[in-house]
């Protein structure tokens, strides 16, 4: 599958500042692309548009030639965010996060991903506030890796975590994307991380650049 943003512009409020200004971006299955740009340059927004969470003001986000936001049912493009505590329902046990993933009855596949991410059985009976951010993020990643996922968008997913967890998570994700031939888009402020994980790195380019970062 091929996911592309064509000439995309976006602003959050009418008359507000353009967060994205005519941006082009492409990623294909099996390809790992890093995205880097100073804060406030719309990296998260670009990913949200690519995942179909937001509709672009101008231009289009296409998955195999069809707008991503028009896909009904399971979306082959899944996004993981920076704050796992916002991405799970605080009133439901963590096992329900895993249940939401797309396993099509393939219990072995689900178990392989859980153990690859180091998810312990005892965590599944807890509520989100009862585990650490690193542990919670592992659940969010597992949920996004269902069998029908083809392209994964990772927005600073390890920025708030400790280095050991970061190393483990990226080790697993790299292996998993290679094994399944997934497409991967990585947003990170760490150039070193992108260089170790990605095939190529894209600088998000904005024409109306402000002079201060």
């Amino acid at each position, binding site marked *: 599958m091929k996911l592309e943003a064509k000439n995309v512009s976006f602003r959050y409020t009418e008359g507000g500042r353009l967060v994205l200004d005519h941006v082009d971006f492409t990623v294909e299955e099996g390809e790992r692309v890093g995205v880097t740009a100073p804060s406030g340059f719309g990296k998260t927004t670009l990913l949200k548009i690519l995942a179909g969470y937001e509709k672009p003001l101008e231009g289009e986000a296409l998955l195999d030639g069809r707008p991503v936001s028009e896909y009904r049912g399971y979306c082959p493009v899944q996004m993981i965010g920076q704050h796992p505590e916002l991405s799970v329902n605080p009133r439901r046990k963590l096992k329900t996060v895993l249940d939401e993933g797309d396993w099509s009855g393939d219990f072995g596949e689900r178990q392989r991903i859980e153990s690859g991410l180091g998810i312990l059985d005892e965590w599944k009976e807890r509520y989100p506030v009862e585990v650490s951010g*690193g542990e919670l993020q592992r659940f969010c990643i597992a949920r996004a890796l269902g069998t029908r996922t083809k392209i994964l968008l990772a927005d600073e997913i390890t920025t708030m975590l*400790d*280095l*050991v967890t970061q*190393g483990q998570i990226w080790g697993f994700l790299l292996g998993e994307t290679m094994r399944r031939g997934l497409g991967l888009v990585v947003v990170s402020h760490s150039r070193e991380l992108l260089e*170790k994980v990605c095939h190529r790195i894209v600088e998000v380019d904005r024409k109306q650049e402000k002079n*201060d*970062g």
Partner: protein
Amino acid sequence: MNIGITDRNTDIVDRNADIANRDADIVDKSKGVENDVLKVEHLSVSFTQYGRGLRRRTLHAVEDLNLSVRAGEIVAVAGSSGSGKSLLAHAVMGILPYNANMDGTVYYDGEILTKERAKRLRGREIVLVPQSVSYLDPLMKIGPQVTKGKNDAATREKSRRVLAGYGLSEDVEEKYPFQLSGGMIRRVLIATAVMETPKLVIADEPTPGLHPEAAKRVMGHFREIADTGAGVLLITHDLELALSAADRITVLYGGRTVGEAAAADFLCEEKLEHPYMKALCRSMPKNWNWDGYKLCDSGEILEYMRKEYGR
């Protein structure tokens, strides 16, 4: 394979004993040292928390934390979220929430820092560079916020000099916070902090959301502050950033001190003693190396830490 793991475990136990010895040494030596600006001994902070229904638990957020900051030095405290680092700042400043219980002693300038003394000194000798931009009043121009409302010529002259020192031009004083970028706001917060020539600066996560270049510049400013003879306590989750700026690093895990090391020691894994710190060192992206299975070998360190540190 099994033999290897057993080996590593005994190794870990041995090293723990070593670390305990070394800690004892440090405490002994520093008793004579007068230039500790800040010294924290056996600090514990706990909360009583209520869950849904009748669930209640006492949360030991910080346990037996030790640390010292000398004049002219940047000491970084690094730990992931939930390791109790922000509470350390609040405990020193005497601004813990009402439902927190604090144990242990904080020395400032060789004397015990009580809540009353902290209240007297904070904002003058001890200043906090806060984590959040919301500490600035959104309805007030930058100039008066930096001078804290004082309008005499000397203060204004000083604020102009300080702001200029951080690369902020005169017209910034006439702007409101929302008109500034994230990086500029951080610099305004630091400028506000150093207006009083403090002896101890506590910076609580001063760089999140900043571009690496901007973050490095902020770190440079902390170095300048330390060079004027103040002690800087830098609290951050970003170990790599801390390494680029600090003299010494204290690593926290689950509210406890894992160990302390000179920043330079992190360049070479062998110089680090605690297995968790070794694992941190190995886990830095620059040391990653894809071997077909994993990027770095952190072994069972998280399982070990969960067992040892209880979370």
